[in-house]
Protein backbone atom coordinates (compact mmCIF):
# COMPACT_ATOMS: atom_id res chain seq x y z
CA UNK A 1 0.00 0.00 0.00
CA UNK A 2 2.80 2.42 0.83
CA UNK A 3 5.02 1.35 -2.04
CA UNK A 4 3.71 3.87 -4.56
CA UNK A 5 3.21 6.85 -2.31
CA UNK A 6 4.13 10.10 -4.00
CA UNK A 7 6.39 11.01 -1.08
CA UNK A 8 8.93 13.24 -2.83
CA UNK A 9 6.19 15.60 -3.87
CA UNK A 10 5.73 16.85 -0.30
CA UNK A 11 8.94 16.81 1.71
CA UNK A 12 7.92 16.57 5.37
CA UNK A 13 10.78 18.59 6.87
CA UNK A 14 9.80 21.59 4.75
CA UNK A 15 7.55 23.46 7.13
CA UNK A 16 9.97 23.22 10.02
CA UNK A 17 12.98 24.29 8.02
CA UNK A 18 11.46 27.37 6.54
CA UNK A 19 10.92 29.40 9.71
CA UNK A 20 14.20 28.30 11.28
CA UNK A 21 16.08 30.23 8.63
CA UNK A 22 14.55 33.55 9.58
CA UNK A 23 14.32 33.20 13.34
CA UNK A 24 15.11 30.49 15.80
CA UNK A 25 12.54 31.08 18.50
CA UNK A 26 9.32 30.41 16.62
CA UNK A 27 10.83 27.25 15.20
CA UNK A 28 11.61 25.99 18.65
CA UNK A 29 8.22 26.75 20.04
CA UNK A 30 6.68 25.01 17.08
CA UNK A 31 8.79 21.96 17.63
CA UNK A 32 7.92 21.82 21.28
CA UNK A 33 4.22 22.08 20.41
CA UNK A 34 4.70 19.26 18.01
CA UNK A 35 6.30 17.04 20.59
CA UNK A 36 3.18 17.20 22.72
CA UNK A 37 1.22 15.63 19.88
CA UNK A 38 0.40 11.93 20.22
CA UNK A 39 2.55 9.46 18.35
CA UNK A 40 6.28 9.68 17.80
CA UNK A 41 6.09 11.05 14.24
CA UNK A 42 3.30 13.02 12.69
CA UNK A 43 2.37 11.36 9.43
CA UNK A 44 -0.81 13.32 8.80
CA UNK A 45 0.56 14.65 5.54
CA UNK A 46 0.79 11.11 4.18
CA UNK A 47 -2.67 10.08 5.35
CA UNK A 48 -4.16 13.33 4.18
CA UNK A 49 -2.67 12.86 0.77
CA UNK A 50 -3.80 9.23 0.53
CA UNK A 51 -7.31 10.06 1.69
CA UNK A 52 -7.81 12.83 -0.81
CA UNK A 53 -5.97 11.06 -3.63
CA UNK A 54 -8.89 9.05 -5.14
CA UNK A 55 -11.21 12.05 -5.40
CA UNK A 56 -8.48 14.39 -6.57
CA UNK A 57 -7.26 11.94 -9.21
CA UNK A 58 -10.83 11.35 -10.37
CA UNK A 59 -11.50 15.07 -10.62
CA UNK A 60 -8.28 15.70 -12.51
CA UNK A 61 -8.88 12.85 -14.96
CA UNK A 62 -12.58 13.51 -15.56
CA UNK A 63 -12.83 17.29 -15.09
CA UNK A 64 -9.46 19.02 -15.10
CA UNK A 65 -7.79 17.27 -18.03
CA UNK A 66 -10.84 17.22 -20.32
CA UNK A 67 -11.46 20.86 -19.54
CA UNK A 68 -7.94 21.80 -20.63
CA UNK A 69 -8.32 19.42 -23.55
CA UNK A 70 -11.46 21.25 -24.68
CA UNK A 71 -9.45 24.44 -24.99
CA UNK A 72 -6.70 22.63 -26.95
CA UNK A 73 -9.15 20.81 -29.23
CA UNK A 74 -10.92 24.08 -30.02
CA UNK A 75 -7.73 25.22 -31.79
CA UNK A 76 -7.70 22.18 -34.06
CA UNK A 77 -9.70 20.67 -36.85
CA UNK A 78 -10.38 17.26 -35.29
CA UNK A 79 -12.74 14.51 -36.34
CA UNK A 80 -13.28 11.08 -34.84
CA UNK A 81 -12.11 8.13 -36.92
CA UNK A 82 -10.71 10.39 -39.59
CA UNK A 83 -7.62 9.08 -41.39
CA UNK A 84 -6.31 12.65 -41.50
CA UNK A 85 -4.22 13.93 -38.65
CA UNK A 86 -5.79 16.77 -36.66
CA UNK A 87 -4.62 20.07 -38.15
CA UNK A 88 -3.90 23.21 -36.19
CA UNK A 89 -6.64 25.72 -36.81
CA UNK A 90 -5.77 28.64 -34.57
CA UNK A 91 -8.86 30.70 -33.83
CA UNK A 92 -10.60 29.55 -37.00
CA UNK A 93 -13.25 27.53 -35.09
CA UNK A 94 -14.22 30.62 -33.11
CA UNK A 95 -14.21 32.80 -36.21
CA UNK A 96 -16.53 30.31 -37.91
CA UNK A 97 -18.85 30.17 -34.92
CA UNK A 98 -19.30 33.91 -34.72
CA UNK A 99 -18.80 35.32 -38.20
CA UNK A 100 -18.93 32.64 -40.89
CA UNK A 101 -22.14 33.32 -42.84
CA UNK A 102 -22.76 29.62 -43.48
CA UNK A 103 -21.84 28.20 -40.10
CA UNK A 104 -22.55 30.87 -37.52
CA UNK A 105 -26.32 30.91 -38.06
CA UNK A 106 -27.33 27.93 -35.89
CA UNK A 107 -24.79 28.76 -33.20
CA UNK A 108 -25.80 32.40 -32.87
CA UNK A 109 -29.42 31.27 -32.87
CA UNK A 110 -28.59 28.86 -30.04
CA UNK A 111 -26.95 31.68 -28.07
CA UNK A 112 -29.97 33.89 -28.65
CA UNK A 113 -32.35 31.08 -27.63
CA UNK A 114 -30.40 30.48 -24.44
CA UNK A 115 -30.46 34.17 -23.70
CA UNK A 116 -34.21 34.40 -24.32
CA UNK A 117 -34.75 31.36 -22.14
CA UNK A 118 -32.69 32.85 -19.31
CA UNK A 119 -34.22 36.32 -19.56
CA UNK A 120 -37.73 34.87 -19.19
CA UNK A 121 -37.07 31.95 -16.86
CA UNK A 122 -34.90 33.72 -14.29
CA UNK A 123 -37.37 36.44 -13.22
CA UNK A 124 -40.52 34.36 -13.76
CA UNK A 125 -39.32 31.24 -12.02
CA UNK A 126 -37.77 33.18 -9.15
CA UNK A 127 -40.96 35.21 -8.65
CA UNK A 128 -43.13 32.09 -8.79
CA UNK A 129 -40.84 30.29 -6.37
CA UNK A 130 -40.97 33.24 -3.99
CA UNK A 131 -44.76 33.36 -4.20
CA UNK A 132 -45.01 29.66 -3.47
CA UNK A 133 -42.47 29.89 -0.66
CA UNK A 134 -44.42 32.69 1.04
CA UNK A 135 -47.66 30.78 0.56
CA UNK A 136 -46.12 27.65 2.05
CA UNK A 137 -44.36 29.42 4.91
CA UNK A 138 -47.18 29.16 7.39
CA UNK A 139 -48.24 26.85 10.14
CA UNK A 140 -50.98 24.67 8.73
CA UNK A 141 -51.54 21.01 9.45
CA UNK A 142 -50.98 19.65 5.96
CA UNK A 143 -48.30 22.15 4.98
CA UNK A 144 -45.68 19.39 4.60
CA UNK A 145 -47.88 17.64 2.06
CA UNK A 146 -48.30 20.83 0.03
CA UNK A 147 -44.57 21.49 0.07
CA UNK A 148 -43.96 17.94 -1.16
CA UNK A 149 -46.46 18.34 -3.99
CA UNK A 150 -44.80 21.48 -5.30
CA UNK A 151 -41.38 19.95 -4.91
CA UNK A 152 -42.28 16.64 -6.56
CA UNK A 153 -41.50 17.53 -10.20
CA UNK A 154 -37.90 18.30 -9.18
CA UNK A 155 -37.27 14.58 -8.69
CA UNK A 156 -38.68 13.76 -12.14
CA UNK A 157 -36.01 13.02 -14.74
CA UNK A 158 -36.11 15.81 -17.31
CA UNK A 159 -36.46 13.30 -20.16
CA UNK A 160 -39.74 12.11 -18.60
CA UNK A 161 -40.98 15.66 -18.02
CA UNK A 162 -40.42 16.33 -21.71
CA UNK A 163 -42.45 13.25 -22.65
CA UNK A 164 -45.38 14.18 -20.38
CA UNK A 165 -45.49 17.71 -21.77
CA UNK A 166 -45.22 16.40 -25.30
CA UNK A 167 -48.62 14.82 -24.65
CA UNK A 168 -50.13 17.86 -22.93
CA UNK A 169 -49.01 20.09 -25.79
CA UNK A 170 -49.86 17.56 -28.51
CA UNK A 171 -50.80 19.22 -31.77
CA UNK A 172 -54.05 17.36 -32.42
CA UNK A 173 -57.34 18.85 -31.24
CA UNK A 174 -57.37 15.96 -28.77
CA UNK A 175 -54.24 17.25 -27.03
CA UNK A 176 -54.81 18.19 -23.40
CA UNK A 177 -54.09 21.91 -23.71
CA UNK A 178 -55.89 22.27 -27.02
CA UNK A 179 -59.03 20.55 -25.77
CA UNK A 180 -58.95 22.56 -22.54
CA UNK A 181 -58.74 25.79 -24.56
CA UNK A 182 -61.47 24.48 -26.80
CA UNK A 183 -63.68 23.87 -23.79
CA UNK A 184 -63.21 27.33 -22.28
CA UNK A 185 -63.67 29.04 -25.65
CA UNK A 186 -66.90 27.09 -26.32
CA UNK A 187 -65.49 25.16 -29.23
CA UNK A 188 -63.57 27.95 -30.92
CA UNK A 189 -60.08 26.61 -30.55
CA UNK A 190 -59.32 23.37 -32.37
CA UNK A 191 -55.81 22.11 -33.10
CA UNK A 192 -52.57 23.97 -32.55
CA UNK A 193 -49.02 22.66 -32.74
CA UNK A 194 -47.48 24.24 -29.65
CA UNK A 195 -44.12 22.52 -29.97
CA UNK A 196 -43.88 22.50 -33.75
CA UNK A 197 -44.77 26.14 -34.28
CA UNK A 198 -41.70 28.36 -34.21
CA UNK A 199 -43.61 31.08 -32.39
CA UNK A 200 -44.68 28.95 -29.42
CA UNK A 201 -41.94 26.31 -29.22
CA UNK A 202 -39.71 28.38 -26.95
CA UNK A 203 -42.64 29.35 -24.73
CA UNK A 204 -43.55 25.67 -24.39
CA UNK A 205 -39.97 24.81 -23.47
CA UNK A 206 -39.97 27.57 -20.88
CA UNK A 207 -43.25 26.45 -19.31
CA UNK A 208 -42.25 22.83 -18.90
CA UNK A 209 -38.81 23.77 -17.59
CA UNK A 210 -40.28 26.10 -14.99
CA UNK A 211 -42.79 23.46 -13.96
CA UNK A 212 -39.98 21.00 -13.33
CA UNK A 213 -37.61 23.40 -11.59
CA UNK A 214 -39.67 25.85 -9.57
CA UNK A 215 -39.93 23.55 -6.55
CA UNK A 216 -36.17 23.56 -6.19
CA UNK A 217 -35.98 27.35 -5.94
CA UNK A 218 -39.03 27.33 -3.69
CA UNK A 219 -37.33 25.08 -1.16
CA UNK A 220 -34.24 27.28 -1.06
CA UNK A 221 -36.33 30.42 -0.60
CA UNK A 222 -38.43 28.71 2.06
CA UNK A 223 -35.26 28.00 4.02
CA UNK A 224 -34.35 31.67 3.62
CA UNK A 225 -37.77 32.83 4.81
CA UNK A 226 -37.57 30.65 7.88
CA UNK A 227 -34.38 32.39 8.93
CA UNK A 228 -36.19 35.72 9.22
CA UNK A 229 -36.94 36.20 12.95
CA UNK A 230 -40.67 36.15 13.70
CA UNK A 231 -40.28 39.16 16.04
CA UNK A 232 -39.68 41.34 13.00
CA UNK A 233 -43.18 40.55 11.73
CA UNK A 234 -44.65 41.06 15.20
CA UNK A 235 -42.97 44.43 15.45
CA UNK A 236 -44.21 45.33 11.99
CA UNK A 237 -47.74 44.24 12.93
CA UNK A 238 -47.60 46.39 16.08
CA UNK A 239 -46.68 49.31 13.86
CA UNK A 240 -49.80 48.53 11.83
CA UNK A 241 -47.80 47.67 8.74
CA UNK A 242 -49.97 46.22 5.98
CA UNK A 243 -49.24 42.79 4.50
CA UNK A 244 -47.62 44.47 1.52
CA UNK A 245 -45.52 46.71 3.73
CA UNK A 246 -44.42 43.68 5.74
CA UNK A 247 -43.44 41.93 2.54
CA UNK A 248 -41.65 45.00 1.22
CA UNK A 249 -39.79 45.99 4.40
CA UNK A 250 -39.32 42.74 6.30
CA UNK A 251 -39.52 39.79 3.91
CA UNK A 252 -37.64 41.18 0.94
CA UNK A 253 -34.66 42.59 2.87
CA UNK A 254 -34.57 39.38 4.95
CA UNK A 255 -34.15 37.10 1.97
CA UNK A 256 -32.32 39.47 -0.33
CA UNK A 257 -29.17 37.35 -0.30
CA UNK A 258 -31.05 34.10 -0.89
CA UNK A 259 -33.09 35.71 -3.64
CA UNK A 260 -30.00 36.87 -5.51
CA UNK A 261 -28.45 33.45 -5.04
CA UNK A 262 -31.52 31.74 -6.46
CA UNK A 263 -31.67 34.10 -9.42
CA UNK A 264 -28.02 33.53 -10.27
CA UNK A 265 -28.30 29.77 -9.81
CA UNK A 266 -31.27 29.76 -12.16
CA UNK A 267 -29.38 31.73 -14.76
CA UNK A 268 -26.50 29.24 -14.70
CA UNK A 269 -28.97 26.36 -14.96
CA UNK A 270 -30.69 28.15 -17.86
CA UNK A 271 -27.54 27.95 -19.90
CA UNK A 272 -27.14 24.25 -19.18
CA UNK A 273 -30.50 23.29 -20.71
CA UNK A 274 -30.17 20.24 -22.92
CA UNK A 275 -32.23 17.14 -22.02
CA UNK A 276 -35.71 18.46 -22.75
CA UNK A 277 -34.59 20.10 -25.99
CA UNK A 278 -32.98 16.90 -27.21
CA UNK A 279 -35.97 14.69 -26.34
CA UNK A 280 -38.57 17.04 -27.82
CA UNK A 281 -36.67 17.90 -31.01
CA UNK A 282 -35.63 14.30 -31.70
CA UNK A 283 -38.90 12.55 -31.02
CA UNK A 284 -41.50 15.17 -30.20
CA UNK A 285 -41.58 17.29 -33.33
CA UNK A 286 -40.44 20.46 -31.56
CA UNK A 287 -39.18 23.22 -33.83
CA UNK A 288 -35.42 22.76 -33.82
CA UNK A 289 -34.31 26.21 -34.79
CA UNK A 290 -36.54 27.98 -32.29
CA UNK A 291 -35.33 25.90 -29.36
CA UNK A 292 -31.76 24.77 -30.03
CA UNK A 293 -29.52 25.68 -27.10
CA UNK A 294 -25.76 26.03 -26.82
CA UNK A 295 -25.39 22.54 -25.32
CA UNK A 296 -27.70 21.08 -27.95
CA UNK A 297 -25.50 22.71 -30.55
CA UNK A 298 -22.34 21.29 -28.94
CA UNK A 299 -23.76 17.77 -28.91
CA UNK A 300 -25.05 17.83 -32.49
CA UNK A 301 -21.76 19.31 -33.71
CA UNK A 302 -19.70 16.67 -31.91
CA UNK A 303 -21.97 13.70 -32.44
CA UNK A 304 -23.94 14.18 -35.65
CA UNK A 305 -21.44 16.27 -37.60
CA UNK A 306 -18.39 14.61 -36.03
CA UNK A 307 -16.73 18.00 -35.71
CA UNK A 308 -14.94 17.71 -32.39
CA UNK A 309 -12.88 20.87 -32.83
CA UNK A 310 -15.88 23.10 -33.38
CA UNK A 311 -17.89 21.40 -30.65
CA UNK A 312 -14.98 22.05 -28.29
CA UNK A 313 -15.02 25.73 -29.24
CA UNK A 314 -18.75 25.82 -28.43
CA UNK A 315 -17.96 24.13 -25.12
CA UNK A 316 -15.37 26.79 -24.30
CA UNK A 317 -17.81 29.60 -25.08
CA UNK A 318 -20.42 27.85 -22.94
CA UNK A 319 -17.96 27.57 -20.08
CA UNK A 320 -17.01 31.25 -20.28
CA UNK A 321 -20.69 32.23 -20.00
CA UNK A 322 -21.21 29.97 -17.01
CA UNK A 323 -18.06 31.18 -15.26
CA UNK A 324 -18.94 34.83 -15.74
CA UNK A 325 -22.41 34.17 -14.29
CA UNK A 326 -20.93 32.22 -11.38
CA UNK A 327 -18.40 34.92 -10.59
CA UNK A 328 -21.12 37.57 -10.65
CA UNK A 329 -23.11 35.34 -8.33
CA UNK A 330 -20.26 35.07 -5.83
CA UNK A 331 -19.64 38.81 -5.96
CA UNK A 332 -23.26 39.68 -5.42
CA UNK A 333 -24.18 37.03 -2.89
CA UNK A 334 -21.28 37.35 -0.47
CA UNK A 335 -22.07 40.76 1.04
CA UNK A 336 -25.75 39.87 1.36
CA UNK A 337 -25.00 36.65 3.21
CA UNK A 338 -22.64 38.15 5.72
CA UNK A 339 -25.05 40.37 7.57
Amino acid at each position, binding site marked *: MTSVEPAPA*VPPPGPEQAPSVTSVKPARSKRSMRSTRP*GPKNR*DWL*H*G*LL*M*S*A*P*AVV*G*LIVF*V*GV*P*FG*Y*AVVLSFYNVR*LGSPLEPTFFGLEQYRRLFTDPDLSGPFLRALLNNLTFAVVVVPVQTALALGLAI*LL*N*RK*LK*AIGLFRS*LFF*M*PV*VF*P*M*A*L*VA*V*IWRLILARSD*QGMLNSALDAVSFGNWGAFDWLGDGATAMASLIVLSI*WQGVGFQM*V*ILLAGLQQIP*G*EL*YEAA*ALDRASRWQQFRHVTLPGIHG*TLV*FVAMLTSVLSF*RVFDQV*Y*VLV*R*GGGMDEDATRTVMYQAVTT*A*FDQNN*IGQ*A*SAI*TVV*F*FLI*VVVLTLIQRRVVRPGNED
Partner: protein
Amino acid sequence: MGTTPTPLRRFMDYAVLSVLAFVFVLPVIYLFLGSLKPSDEVLDGLSGFLPTHLSFDNYSAVLDSLDSDSTGYFWGFMGVSLLLAFVVVTGGLFVNSMAAYGLSRLKWRGRNAVFTLILLLMLVPFESVAVPLFYMFNDQRNTLPILALPFIANAFSVYQFHTFFRSIPPSIEEAARIDGAGPWRTFFAIVVPMSKPAFASVAILTFLIQWGSFLWPVLMVSDPSVRPLPLEISVFQGQEPPDWGQILAFGVLLVLPVLVVFAFFQRWFVQGVASSAVKG
Protein backbone atom coordinates in the same frame (compact mmCIF):
# COMPACT_ATOMS: atom_id res chain seq x y z
CA MET B 1 -47.52 34.97 10.57
CA GLY B 2 -46.84 35.33 14.26
CA THR B 3 -50.50 35.76 15.16
CA THR B 4 -52.92 32.83 15.20
CA PRO B 5 -54.99 32.85 12.02
CA THR B 6 -58.77 33.03 12.18
CA PRO B 7 -60.72 29.94 11.06
CA LEU B 8 -61.88 31.76 7.94
CA ARG B 9 -58.35 32.74 7.05
CA ARG B 10 -57.17 29.19 7.60
CA PHE B 11 -59.93 27.89 5.36
CA MET B 12 -58.91 30.37 2.66
CA ASP B 13 -55.29 29.26 2.97
CA TYR B 14 -56.28 25.64 2.49
CA ALA B 15 -58.54 26.48 -0.44
CA VAL B 16 -55.93 28.53 -2.28
CA LEU B 17 -53.21 25.97 -1.66
CA SER B 18 -55.40 23.05 -2.69
CA VAL B 19 -56.43 24.64 -5.98
CA LEU B 20 -52.86 25.65 -6.82
CA ALA B 21 -51.43 22.29 -5.87
CA PHE B 22 -54.07 20.47 -7.89
CA VAL B 23 -53.32 22.48 -11.04
CA PHE B 24 -49.62 22.05 -10.43
CA VAL B 25 -49.72 18.26 -10.16
CA LEU B 26 -52.13 17.76 -13.07
CA PRO B 27 -49.29 16.55 -15.33
CA VAL B 28 -48.37 13.96 -12.69
CA ILE B 29 -51.97 12.81 -12.39
CA TYR B 30 -52.13 12.61 -16.16
CA LEU B 31 -48.99 10.47 -16.19
CA PHE B 32 -50.31 7.96 -13.66
CA LEU B 33 -53.88 7.85 -14.99
CA GLY B 34 -52.73 7.59 -18.60
CA SER B 35 -50.43 4.70 -17.77
CA LEU B 36 -53.51 2.76 -16.64
CA LYS B 37 -55.72 3.55 -19.62
CA PRO B 38 -56.02 2.00 -23.09
CA SER B 39 -53.67 3.81 -25.45
CA ASP B 40 -56.39 5.30 -27.65
CA GLU B 41 -58.01 6.93 -24.61
CA VAL B 42 -54.88 8.76 -23.42
CA LEU B 43 -54.77 11.36 -26.16
CA ASP B 44 -58.49 11.94 -26.21
CA GLY B 45 -59.15 15.48 -25.13
CA LEU B 46 -60.22 16.19 -21.58
CA SER B 47 -61.60 12.69 -21.20
CA GLY B 48 -57.94 11.68 -20.87
CA PHE B 49 -58.46 12.65 -17.24
CA LEU B 50 -61.43 10.34 -16.72
CA PRO B 51 -60.47 7.23 -14.81
CA THR B 52 -62.13 4.80 -17.21
CA HIS B 53 -61.08 1.29 -18.29
CA LEU B 54 -58.20 1.22 -15.85
CA SER B 55 -55.87 -1.77 -15.97
CA PHE B 56 -52.22 -2.68 -15.72
CA ASP B 57 -52.17 -3.90 -19.32
CA ASN B 58 -49.77 -1.16 -20.42
CA TYR B 59 -47.23 -2.28 -17.89
CA SER B 60 -47.18 -5.86 -19.08
CA ALA B 61 -47.17 -4.57 -22.67
CA VAL B 62 -44.04 -2.52 -21.93
CA LEU B 63 -42.32 -5.61 -20.55
CA ASP B 64 -43.44 -7.62 -23.58
CA SER B 65 -42.47 -5.10 -26.22
CA LEU B 66 -39.04 -4.46 -24.68
CA ASP B 67 -38.02 -8.09 -24.67
CA SER B 68 -35.51 -8.76 -27.43
CA ASP B 69 -31.85 -8.07 -28.18
CA SER B 70 -32.70 -5.47 -30.83
CA THR B 71 -35.04 -3.40 -28.64
CA GLY B 72 -33.27 -4.18 -25.39
CA TYR B 73 -34.94 -5.60 -22.29
CA PHE B 74 -36.89 -3.46 -19.88
CA TRP B 75 -35.21 -5.09 -16.90
CA GLY B 76 -31.90 -4.54 -18.65
CA PHE B 77 -32.49 -0.76 -18.74
CA MET B 78 -33.66 -0.82 -15.15
CA GLY B 79 -30.64 -2.91 -14.15
CA VAL B 80 -28.23 -0.55 -15.86
CA SER B 81 -29.78 2.49 -14.18
CA LEU B 82 -29.81 0.83 -10.76
CA LEU B 83 -26.24 -0.39 -11.11
CA LEU B 84 -24.93 3.01 -12.24
CA ALA B 85 -26.80 4.77 -9.43
CA PHE B 86 -25.45 2.30 -6.88
CA VAL B 87 -21.85 2.62 -8.05
CA VAL B 88 -21.94 6.41 -8.35
CA VAL B 89 -23.64 6.93 -4.98
CA THR B 90 -21.64 4.48 -2.86
CA GLY B 91 -18.36 5.12 -4.65
CA GLY B 92 -18.97 8.85 -4.42
CA LEU B 93 -19.80 8.78 -0.70
CA PHE B 94 -16.65 6.83 0.01
CA VAL B 95 -14.22 8.77 -2.13
CA ASN B 96 -15.56 12.28 -1.54
CA SER B 97 -16.09 12.03 2.20
CA MET B 98 -12.61 10.59 2.64
CA ALA B 99 -11.10 13.42 0.63
CA ALA B 100 -13.07 16.01 2.58
CA TYR B 101 -11.81 14.51 5.83
CA GLY B 102 -8.21 14.47 4.65
CA LEU B 103 -8.56 18.08 3.59
CA SER B 104 -10.46 19.46 6.55
CA ARG B 105 -9.10 17.57 9.55
CA LEU B 106 -5.58 16.46 8.80
CA LYS B 107 -3.03 19.23 8.67
CA TRP B 108 -0.56 18.89 5.85
CA ARG B 109 1.33 21.12 3.57
CA GLY B 110 -0.45 21.68 0.29
CA ARG B 111 -3.92 20.82 1.52
CA ASN B 112 -5.09 24.37 0.97
CA ALA B 113 -3.82 24.25 -2.58
CA VAL B 114 -5.64 20.97 -3.18
CA PHE B 115 -8.86 22.30 -1.67
CA THR B 116 -8.63 25.44 -3.78
CA LEU B 117 -8.22 23.24 -6.84
CA ILE B 118 -11.39 21.38 -5.87
CA LEU B 119 -13.27 24.65 -5.40
CA LEU B 120 -12.13 25.73 -8.86
CA LEU B 121 -13.20 22.43 -10.41
CA MET B 122 -16.60 22.96 -8.79
CA LEU B 123 -17.04 25.81 -11.25
CA VAL B 124 -16.77 23.45 -14.20
CA PRO B 125 -20.17 21.96 -15.03
CA PHE B 126 -20.20 18.52 -16.58
CA GLU B 127 -21.61 20.03 -19.79
CA SER B 128 -18.34 21.81 -20.46
CA VAL B 129 -16.28 18.62 -20.38
CA ALA B 130 -18.76 16.30 -22.10
CA VAL B 131 -17.39 16.85 -25.63
CA PRO B 132 -13.68 16.34 -24.81
CA LEU B 133 -14.57 13.35 -22.61
CA PHE B 134 -16.54 11.90 -25.51
CA TYR B 135 -13.45 12.31 -27.67
CA MET B 136 -11.01 10.98 -25.05
CA PHE B 137 -13.02 7.89 -24.19
CA ASN B 138 -14.50 7.14 -27.57
CA ASP B 139 -13.09 3.62 -27.59
CA GLN B 140 -14.98 3.00 -24.34
CA ARG B 141 -18.39 3.75 -25.86
CA ASN B 142 -21.11 1.26 -24.93
CA THR B 143 -19.26 -0.01 -21.88
CA LEU B 144 -20.64 0.32 -18.37
CA PRO B 145 -17.61 1.61 -16.40
CA ILE B 146 -17.25 4.80 -18.43
CA LEU B 147 -20.90 5.64 -17.77
CA ALA B 148 -20.23 5.73 -14.01
CA LEU B 149 -16.60 6.73 -13.59
CA PRO B 150 -16.81 10.45 -14.45
CA PHE B 151 -19.46 11.01 -11.75
CA ILE B 152 -17.89 9.29 -8.73
CA ALA B 153 -15.40 11.97 -7.73
CA ASN B 154 -17.53 15.07 -7.30
CA ALA B 155 -16.17 18.44 -6.27
CA PHE B 156 -19.50 19.63 -4.89
CA SER B 157 -19.85 16.53 -2.70
CA VAL B 158 -16.33 17.07 -1.33
CA TYR B 159 -17.31 20.64 -0.58
CA GLN B 160 -20.51 19.59 1.20
CA PHE B 161 -18.64 17.03 3.36
CA HIS B 162 -15.89 19.55 4.01
CA THR B 163 -18.40 22.08 5.32
CA PHE B 164 -20.00 19.45 7.52
CA PHE B 165 -16.77 18.05 8.98
CA ARG B 166 -15.59 21.51 9.89
CA SER B 167 -18.71 21.98 11.98
CA ILE B 168 -17.92 18.94 14.15
CA PRO B 169 -16.10 19.92 17.37
CA PRO B 170 -12.55 18.57 17.08
CA SER B 171 -12.36 17.46 20.72
CA ILE B 172 -14.00 14.09 20.04
CA GLU B 173 -11.51 13.15 17.36
CA GLU B 174 -8.61 14.44 19.42
CA ALA B 175 -9.64 12.14 22.25
CA ALA B 176 -9.68 9.20 19.87
CA ARG B 177 -6.30 10.10 18.50
CA ILE B 178 -4.78 10.47 21.93
CA ASP B 179 -6.05 6.95 22.58
CA GLY B 180 -3.88 5.88 19.68
CA ALA B 181 -6.38 5.63 16.80
CA GLY B 182 -4.87 6.58 13.46
CA PRO B 183 -6.60 8.99 11.09
CA TRP B 184 -8.25 6.18 9.13
CA ARG B 185 -9.78 4.55 12.19
CA THR B 186 -10.78 7.93 13.56
CA PHE B 187 -12.51 8.69 10.30
CA PHE B 188 -14.32 5.41 9.72
CA ALA B 189 -15.16 4.56 13.35
CA ILE B 190 -15.92 8.00 14.76
CA VAL B 191 -16.44 10.69 12.15
CA VAL B 192 -18.52 8.69 9.65
CA PRO B 193 -21.11 7.52 12.21
CA MET B 194 -21.40 11.11 13.48
CA SER B 195 -22.00 12.46 10.00
CA LYS B 196 -25.13 10.60 8.97
CA PRO B 197 -27.01 13.77 7.96
CA ALA B 198 -24.24 14.79 5.58
CA PHE B 199 -24.02 11.30 4.10
CA ALA B 200 -27.79 11.12 3.72
CA SER B 201 -28.16 14.42 1.94
CA VAL B 202 -25.17 13.90 -0.36
CA ALA B 203 -26.36 10.37 -1.18
CA ILE B 204 -29.86 11.49 -2.04
CA LEU B 205 -28.75 14.44 -4.12
CA THR B 206 -26.26 12.25 -6.00
CA PHE B 207 -28.87 9.56 -6.57
CA LEU B 208 -31.37 12.04 -7.91
CA ILE B 209 -28.94 13.61 -10.36
CA GLN B 210 -27.57 10.26 -11.47
CA TRP B 211 -31.02 8.72 -11.96
CA GLY B 212 -31.99 11.44 -14.45
CA SER B 213 -28.54 11.58 -16.09
CA PHE B 214 -29.06 12.04 -19.81
CA LEU B 215 -26.33 13.97 -21.63
CA TRP B 216 -23.51 11.50 -21.07
CA PRO B 217 -25.55 8.43 -22.10
CA VAL B 218 -26.69 10.31 -25.25
CA LEU B 219 -23.05 10.65 -26.26
CA MET B 220 -21.74 7.30 -25.07
CA VAL B 221 -24.50 4.73 -25.59
CA SER B 222 -25.96 3.29 -28.77
CA ASP B 223 -26.17 -0.34 -27.65
CA PRO B 224 -29.48 -1.15 -25.88
CA SER B 225 -27.76 -3.55 -23.49
CA VAL B 226 -26.03 -0.68 -21.62
CA ARG B 227 -28.75 1.95 -22.09
CA PRO B 228 -30.05 3.59 -18.90
CA LEU B 229 -33.79 4.28 -18.46
CA PRO B 230 -33.91 8.04 -19.21
CA LEU B 231 -32.16 7.54 -22.55
CA GLU B 232 -34.47 4.63 -23.33
CA ILE B 233 -37.61 6.69 -22.73
CA SER B 234 -36.42 9.14 -25.38
CA VAL B 235 -35.98 6.20 -27.77
CA PHE B 236 -39.25 4.57 -26.71
CA GLN B 237 -41.33 7.73 -27.17
CA GLY B 238 -39.93 8.14 -30.69
CA GLN B 239 -41.69 4.99 -31.99
CA GLU B 240 -44.18 5.47 -34.82
CA PRO B 241 -47.02 5.47 -34.16
CA PRO B 242 -46.50 6.18 -30.47
CA ASP B 243 -48.31 3.91 -28.04
CA TRP B 244 -49.11 6.49 -25.39
CA GLY B 245 -50.37 4.11 -22.75
CA GLN B 246 -47.14 2.15 -22.89
CA ILE B 247 -44.98 5.28 -22.99
CA LEU B 248 -46.63 6.63 -19.84
CA ALA B 249 -46.38 3.23 -18.14
CA PHE B 250 -42.67 3.29 -18.95
CA GLY B 251 -42.52 6.81 -17.49
CA VAL B 252 -44.11 5.65 -14.24
CA LEU B 253 -41.63 2.80 -13.96
CA LEU B 254 -38.83 5.28 -14.60
CA VAL B 255 -39.91 7.73 -11.92
CA LEU B 256 -41.09 5.24 -9.30
CA PRO B 257 -37.64 4.58 -7.75
CA VAL B 258 -36.95 8.30 -7.22
CA LEU B 259 -40.46 8.88 -5.89
CA VAL B 260 -39.95 6.09 -3.37
CA VAL B 261 -36.63 7.52 -2.26
CA PHE B 262 -38.19 10.97 -2.12
CA ALA B 263 -41.15 9.78 -0.06
CA PHE B 264 -38.96 8.09 2.52
CA PHE B 265 -36.08 10.50 2.74
CA GLN B 266 -37.52 13.83 1.71
CA ARG B 267 -36.62 15.46 5.00
CA TRP B 268 -32.94 14.80 4.38
CA PHE B 269 -33.31 15.67 0.80
CA VAL B 270 -34.98 19.02 1.22
CA GLN B 271 -32.62 19.87 4.06
CA GLY B 272 -29.58 18.97 2.00
CA VAL B 273 -30.69 21.02 -0.98
CA ALA B 274 -31.70 24.00 1.08
CA SER B 275 -28.81 24.15 3.51
CA SER B 276 -26.15 23.71 0.87
CA ALA B 277 -27.76 26.42 -1.19
CA VAL B 278 -28.29 28.91 1.62
CA LYS B 279 -24.76 28.48 2.85
CA GLY B 280 -23.66 28.83 -0.76
